[in-house]
């Protein structure tokens, strides 16, 4: 009733409220526009989302369902069993079939098997989970760190800026992989260690762009206005600066996603990734598999292709996103 009353008053006053579409309509419209303008980028975006769903969402939700239903003690094997039964071609990642070692592709094992009879396709699919979780986790962490440092030093300036930037400089002078190998090799590796160490290491370097943009934003009048109405520093940083640098942070994130997938792959390749039997693309290419590649070349090909597709989609998606979000760089690459 109140709504209709308001409407009538507005009509009398000759003023109508600007029509705001519901959030979902706006989102789909925006997405559609993005797809129309950047078809290639959109396709790659879908690939990324696909990997995310296959690698993360499906196993997680299935785990939740099975553990709340109390069906299995440890949820993952249950889910894997279900997958095996329903599809018939996706096996648990550590299931060995010793009679079918180093087989080529067949209807039972679409991409063949490895040296101890594990199905390569299944390991690739479960490996997507590792890649996606490490990259998204590490990116979330390093963007948080980067944004915090960048906004803080851009906002306060002066000695805060100088102090923080000494730290950033030191982090950037560290030779990446060497430090990561040292830390992971000595403290042991695992999913969370990988996420934490990669995220922490990459964080400070991400802050430079954010700092630059923050300084640019600080010069605009709405910051002054916010200060005049008595907003606190933290409020200004969160409500006025952060939304204005958010586009940059998203760009940084998409660009570093691909980089981190490669980094994780090289770490597992050298043996500092997830401990076996957890599947990881880099580790599938590493030494233990290399001696059998002569007999089964698929071992050497498929994991690399998987990494390539994922990183390629990340990169193209990032490029497309940059073209849309950052007008200065439009069409320059």
């Amino acid at each position: 009733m109140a709504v209709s009353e308001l409407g009538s008053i507005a009509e009398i006053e000759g003023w109508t409220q600007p029509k705001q579409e519901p959030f979902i309509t706006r989102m789909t419209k925006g997405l559609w526009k993005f797809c129309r303008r950047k078809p290639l980028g959109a396709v790659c975006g879908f690939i990324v989302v696909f990997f995310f769903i296959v690698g993360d969402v499906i196993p997680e939700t299935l785990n939740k369902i099975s553990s709340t239903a109390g069906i299995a003690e440890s949820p993952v094997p249950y889910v894997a069993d279900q997958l095996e039964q329903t599809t018939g071609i996706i096996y648990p990642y550590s299931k060995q079939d010793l009679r079918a070692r180093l087989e080529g592709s067949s209807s039972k094992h679409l991409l063949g098997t490895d040296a101890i009879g594990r199905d390569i396709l299944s390991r690739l699919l479960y490996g997507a989970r590792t890649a996606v979780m490490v990259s998204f986790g590490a990116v979330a962490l390093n963007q948080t760190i980067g944004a915090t440092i960048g906004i803080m030093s851009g906002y306060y300036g002066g000695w805060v800026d100088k102090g923080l930037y000494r730290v950033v400089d030191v982090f950037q002078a560290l030779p990446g992989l060497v430090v990561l190998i040292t830390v992971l090799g000595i403290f042991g590796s695992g999913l969370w260690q990988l996420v934490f160490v990669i995220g922490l290491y990459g964080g400070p370097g991400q802050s430079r762009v954010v700092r630059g943009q923050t300084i640019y934003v600080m010069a605009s009048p709405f910051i002054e206005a916010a200060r005049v109405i008595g907003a606190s520093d933290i409020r200004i940083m969160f409500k006025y600066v952060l939304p204005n640098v958010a586009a940059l942070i998203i760009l940084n994130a998409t660009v570093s996603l691909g980089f981190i997938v490669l980094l994780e792959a090289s770490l597992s390749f050298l043996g500092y990734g997830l401990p076996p039997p957890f599947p990881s693309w880099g580790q599938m290419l590493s030494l233990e598999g290399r001696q059998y590649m002569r007999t089964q070349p698929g071992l050497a090909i498929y994991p690399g292709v998987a990494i390539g597709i994922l990183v390629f989609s990340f990169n193209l998606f990032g490029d497309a996103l940059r073209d849309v979000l950052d007008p200065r760089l439009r069409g320059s690459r």
Partner: protein
Amino acid sequence: MVTILTFLFLRVFLPADVIDLIIGEYGRNDPALREALEKELGISGNLFSQYLDWIGLSWFWGGPTGILQGDLGESLHSGRPVLGELKRRVPVSFELGLWAQMSAIVVAVPLGVWAALKQDKWPDYGLRSTAILLNSVPSFWIAVLVITFGSIWFNWAPPINFKYLTEDPVAHLKIMALPAIIIGITPSGGLIRLIRTQMLEVLRQDYIRTAHAKGLSQNTVLYKHALRNALIPVVTVIGVGLPNIIAGTVIFEQIFIIPGMGRYLVDAVNNLDYPVVQGLNLVFALLLMFSILLVDLSYAFLDPRIRFR
């Protein structure tokens, strides 16, 4: 600064583990033995004095020798001094990195220029997609493929016996060439794209038109006027890409069995051989800083405007 960080990283958490590892080899947990070992390995006392020992500042008042005296300590595993080992290994890795960087530039510069000259024609599209593709494929995968299919099709395998440059230059270069080229592939993808962008920008400048109008030949304009200006930002990217190259050497020394710093690092980390790990981290960081300095200096060489600032 880097020394402090390296030191803190390793010392705060590590020493107990190493001692446990070594004591485990003796087979009994004897406090006296533990103390003696700690003293011998230079990890007794508080952190600050340990750090002074390692740096070698405490040498001035009668402590053991440290980095300032050119002593990086000894390997816990083999007992050999770290410095001597590094003297053999640093040149190898450095050389590999240098070749890799060179191959990246040698590939990327002509291709980037070509893509810029043929803008929006098929060589441009082809090169750009190839460049993105190269950027997103892990270089160690290419190495694995080369080794696998090299052995399947041509019955070829990378040589196992490493030859030093002084021993047998030809064999040495044969060993180094392949890893260097493959390490260079990943950075060259990014370089191609950057050089293309820069060339396009520079080619639209007025002074290029002036140079053409003066009647200079196409090649002179291209190489003396355009390329030189287009390369300035490229130098930065080369500097930024250096950690990538270092990472490449670490991985490829594993694959191609080259006795450089990377292999040393991986072995040392696996043995918890902390003097070696500390020394290596230091050397890697110093090398990186040195190269960045070199890149900065080459700015001045390429762009006279910076020299007058």
